[in-house]
């Protein structure tokens, strides 16, 4: 996407949502849904339209784990680190995922295919351990099933 298109997209989103009470989070969600991240160069536009300072908008973006200011890989893999998954081999799965992808949390593979993020509970605790890729959720994930899922997603 060219920078011009990017700015236009953001302007349309802001114009559409800015009259909602407490509109900043809905706007940031819409921007991230459209662009995959919240580009730092769009912050001044968002701030101006909402009559906020750039620092305030940046502060909100950086406060929430979900918002990102750099593009993610094609697929974002979220591995649950919470207690229920830990009790069912989550640590081994986590190590396997990191080794297989060759990256740590908050990193993206060099081919741009996968980003890895930790997550604290997917509400899938009765089917632990769990991971999520995009909006697809997976339960009772073993190292072997993870390899299969990865193959599917790489295809």
């Amino acid at each position: 996407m060219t920078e011009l298109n990017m700015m236009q997209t953001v302007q349309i989103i802001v114009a559409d949502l800015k009259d909602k009470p407490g509109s900043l989070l809905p706007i940031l969600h819409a921007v991230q849904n459209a662009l995959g991240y919240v580009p730092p160069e769009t912050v001044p536009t968002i701030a101006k339209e909402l009559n906020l300072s750039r620092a305030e908008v940046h502060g909100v973006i950086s406060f929430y784990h979900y918002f990102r200011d750099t593009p993610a890989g094609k697929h974002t893999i979220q591995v649950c680190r919470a207690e229920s998954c830990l009790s069912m081999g989550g640590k081994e799965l986590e190590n396997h995922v990191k080794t297989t992808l060759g990256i740590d949390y908050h990193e993206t593979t060099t081919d741009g295919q996968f980003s890895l993020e930790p997550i604290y509970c997917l509400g899938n605790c009765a089917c632990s351990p769990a991971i999520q890729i995009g909006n697809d959720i997976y339960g009772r994930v073993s190292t072997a099933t993870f390899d299969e899922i990865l193959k599917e997603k790489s295809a």
Partner: protein
Amino acid sequence: MSITLYVPCDSSAVSVGADRVVNAIAQEAEKRGVEIKIVRNGSRGMYWLEPMVEVVTEKGRIAYGAVNASDVSSLFDADFLNGGSHALSLGLTEEIPYFKKQQRLTFARVGITDPVSLEDYIAHDGYRGLKNALEISQADIVKHVSDSGLRGRGGAAFPTGIKWNTVLNTQADQKYIICNADEGDSGTFSDRMIMECDPFVLIEGMTIAGLAVSATQGYIYLRIEYPHAFEILNTAIANAYAAGYLGDDVQGSGRAFHLEVRQGAGAYVCGEETSLMESLEGKRGLVRFKPPLPAISGLFGKPTVVNNVISLASVPIILDKGGDFYRDFGMGRSRGTLPLQLAGNLKHPGLVELAFGVTLRELLYDFGGGSATGKPIRAVQVGGPLGAYLPESQFDTPLDYEAFAALWAVVGHGGIVAFDDTVDMAEMAKYSMEFCAEESCGKCTPCRIGATRGYEVMTEIVNKRDLDKNIPLLRSLCDTMLNSSLCALGGMTPYPVLSALNHFPEDFGVNVEHNAA
């Protein structure tokens, strides 16, 4: 005549292949020229049996599970469409002991109906509570909720009726109902199930709350980790608007109630009500000082009811059957039922709704079937990541707010996570500090600095360095966090840490006799 089958659309069922099973059944039926209708219901909550397929027969719904796509052809061979016998047969769903032994009030429809079908909801006693609420005074609605003894199911257990009464009696031009659906507590999934499997019960509960206190706008603050719930809620809300159950004139009463879902953005602390309101206002989720109470000055400075999903979803049955009906379940000052979530290392994890008073042991063994690995259950964390760890010697404690408080533990949101004897409790304590450091909003020092220092001290302890110095340091740090944090995040992180240390000192390299609290 076509045969009706049920396969859940619940995200946990989907996570283990429910969608693949639906496709396989549809294809196989077409191949064999059989006419079928597949309804995507919610989950019954027996997750070790998911994906569970139910077939409607003259005798009732017959279940098969856990079904893999590769089992489908053999199910057809066994004539499962007429309830035929198969290795995966479970018999009549409602006769499965795990399900039959429950007391489902809030979850009465979960797993039975199509979540987004308003017709189904009404056919199964839905919107009867609202009908009654429209015929009585606001004070009487609040009285039913007070009489029921309902206490906040999010974890704090504050009496819901008192909260509503305060908002009712505070004058303002605008009031709000907020549903706290930021179910961030690990080991819990009852909110997710209600939103994915019976969203109308939440919508009805919020509408009743709005009528009770004169609030015309409701927000469901939903965590970003629940994309399926987001879709289902939005569909259900659109259906409720279309049928006049939401809008400017709820069921011709002339009274308005509007509802919108807002997504969080991955901050655990936003499950704390004041932080949640900051987030809804479009700000960083920093915890506010109290007072003022949200009931007096909450969202945008207006009187606001903030209730958990389960609290609000329990309101329709209270208004339908009366406060006394609900109060007759339970024990002591813990009235009604609690949807318990059995999670972690258990053979039969799932959702169990029961009256307060059931013991942990019954839940872990009679329902949970013991550990999944077959090893002894060594520790159980109750009430999410800020809940205490309980050892085997405390498994006979009844689920009751006061009984748990007496053990320096919490019932919280009813999540129960079991660990077998391979668990290292010092590692779990270290994890609790790491989690707190990761999720602290940063406003108060005991939490912001304390959690980071706590993680460092726990790292030293796990590596068995300077235990004589580090164990007292950890206790002192926990004491500070416990007594001077602004909210429960910093204030309750010492629960898992100290309970692990007190009950499992050997994992910390501490001599039991020298581990005086």
